[in-house]
């Protein structure tokens, strides 16, 4: 049994560059099912990152709608939008985007710090810390808890970022070229992890990549070209 969890309805987006408008997305329609692993592929500038940002409420579409479980979420208040980012979506970026001043463990605890006020946070602190530690252990970094990002390797940083994305217990993981900065072996390791998490936790996963080999590991591949969905096909794997 499958059900549509996240949908895009006629998404349009263009960016202003000087005086001219550069169109990026021309009416994207997409349905993602709960627990599905979708890869979005396309050439540079095809709008795949923009699509991910729109779906994850990091950006607002010029036209069109984003629906979560059938309810529109792209036009909610700023406060609700912050809550969606914090609770529903987990982001993973190409350049990891860890906070350099914080240790790996603190980076993983940040989503909870943002979610709760100081008093509520302090009351739950030991539970949050235990959960973050468990997550870091799960991604294989149990021995790196107190290290700063600068002291970690690329693969370790991305694993930390994945642990952080999971910390808020999101329903949907949005990954923008998560292996783009990693060598292929490390990249596949990260991908194995994502795949496992997708299966283990039933997480919906959307992954943007330009690497077809990576995309092959998804349940479905969506190809973007010129701001439109060119075709979509179940992956070979």
């Amino acid at each position, binding site marked *: 049994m499958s059900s549509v969890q996240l949908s895009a309805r006629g998404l349009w987006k263009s960016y202003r560059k000087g005086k001219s408008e550069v169109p990026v997305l021309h009416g994207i329609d997409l349905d993602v099912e709960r627990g599905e692993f979708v890869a979005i592929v396309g050439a540079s500038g095809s709008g795949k990152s923009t699509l991910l940002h729109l779906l994850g409420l990091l*950006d607002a579409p010029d036209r069109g709608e984003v629906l979560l479980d059938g309810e529109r979420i792209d036009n909610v208040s700023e406060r609700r939008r912050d809550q969606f980012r*914090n609770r529903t979506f987990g982001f993973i970026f190409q350049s990891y985007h860890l906070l350099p*001043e914080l240790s790996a463990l603190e980076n993983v605890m*940040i989503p909870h710090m*943002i979610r709760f006020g100081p008093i509520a946070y302090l009351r739950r602190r030991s539970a949050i810390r235990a959960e973050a530690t468990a997550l870091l252990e799960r991604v294989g970094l149990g021995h790196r808890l107190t290290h700063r990002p600068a002291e970690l390797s690329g693969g370790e940083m991305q694993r930390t970022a994945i642990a952080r994305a999971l910390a808020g217990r999101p329903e949907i993981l949005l990954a923008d070229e998560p292996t783009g900065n990693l060598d292929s072996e490390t990249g596949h390791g990260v991908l194995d992890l994502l795949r496992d998490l997708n299966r283990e936790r039933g997480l919906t996963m959307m992954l943007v990549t330009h690497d077809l080999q990576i995309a092959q590991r998804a349940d479905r591949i969506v190809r973007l070209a010129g701001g439109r969905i060119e075709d979509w096909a179940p992956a070979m794997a």
Partner: protein
Amino acid sequence: MYKSLLCWRYLRTRYIALASIISVMLGVATMIVVNSVMAGFSAKMRDRLHGVLADVVVESYSIDGFYNHEEVTERILEVAGDRIAATAPTMETFALAKWTVSGQPFTRQVQLIGVEPESRAKTGDFAEFLVADQSGERIAPSFEISEKVKLNRPVGRLLQEARKNDPDDLIGAQILQDQLESEVPDHGAIIGFAVGHLHRDGKDYAIAPPGTRIGLVFPSAGQGKPKPEYDDYTVVGYFKSDMSEYDSQHVYIPLRRLQYMRGLINERGRGAVNAIQIKVKPGVDLDALARSLQGELEKLQPNFFRVATWEEKQGPLLAAVAVEQSILNILLFFIIAVAGFGILGIFSMIVVEKTRDIGILKALGASTAGVRGIFLGYGFSLGVVGGGVGLVGGLLFVEYINPIESALSRLTGRRVFDGDIYYFNEIPTLVQLSTVSWIVGGAIAIAMAASVWPAQRAAKLHPVQALRNE
């Protein structure tokens, strides 16, 4: 929670922020030091001035004064007896002091004050300022010429020697004794310390040691033309208030003698005075008292009396200090304002540097207000840390200002604070809680105000644009 965590981490890891902390710190410390010194200076000066001057003085416009001072005093007590602690009649006039020590003549222009020492002592700190010599040994408020003072004269020393060497030569001793008695004027004078001493290279040299015969020339009183009157006195002690203005001018002699010499004792045996010193009880409003006395005395004798509080008598000096302090404060406040702009610049840089972090936080669900809070909190912590360190540093500097001054003097080879120029030997300080809290509070407020704009800019950053910045 992430706000305070990030503030704390930024504070500890961004060394560039140290620059803002140091500028806030220096501004706060400077303001505390300057204010404490100026407050100490003016407090101590007021203290001294007030010690020398009585709380309220009733003067006649004429230096010939008035004979009915008893009635005037009675009237004053009638009006405000419940507010007055003591009164003392005095006579002030200009005079020329002449004396010779070891063949060397000295002449000084002085302010001659005829007092009843006992009653004058009750209306101010007069008695506390009287010393016997450089040693600072205190003497009683009296013009009595003691044996010790007499023996300090050259003949007195000869007499002492003669008594010691030849105790049986009573005739010789008697001759010297007679000589001494004939040399010593009957009336004592207490002269200002700086009148009787020269100050050179940090040491005092007596030029009118106790026992010196000092001649005073002052104007006679009366209807006709003033004529100079001459009278001799014996120096019995010194007036040392450490206010150079007074120490270098005042000469005190017995009131009755001055009245007699100026021809100001009438046929009924009453002497004239030209001032009544009034000491009021604690907590009395001096200005109100002066106004009511002025009004009352106008009724007694119009346009004859002038009633002034000690502050009014020293008005220009006190006002000058107050003006100086407020101008300095305005100027110094610019220092903190400069520190504020420093924070603004540095913060804008940090916001640019932290653009990516801001994008991450927003992607993780941090609100606009939350991001703003980080940078406002950061500015606040910079202000608190800078202000706190400046507070401690400033207070320590104030505490050890005199050792620091002497170290600086030794280092530069010239006196930074010259006790001869100012009224004090040490730099006086007074730390006022209200001033200090204003300074620290103001510094924190400025630091926060300077962080508002960068914080607002950070909060307004679009997450996607912030993250694209790689």
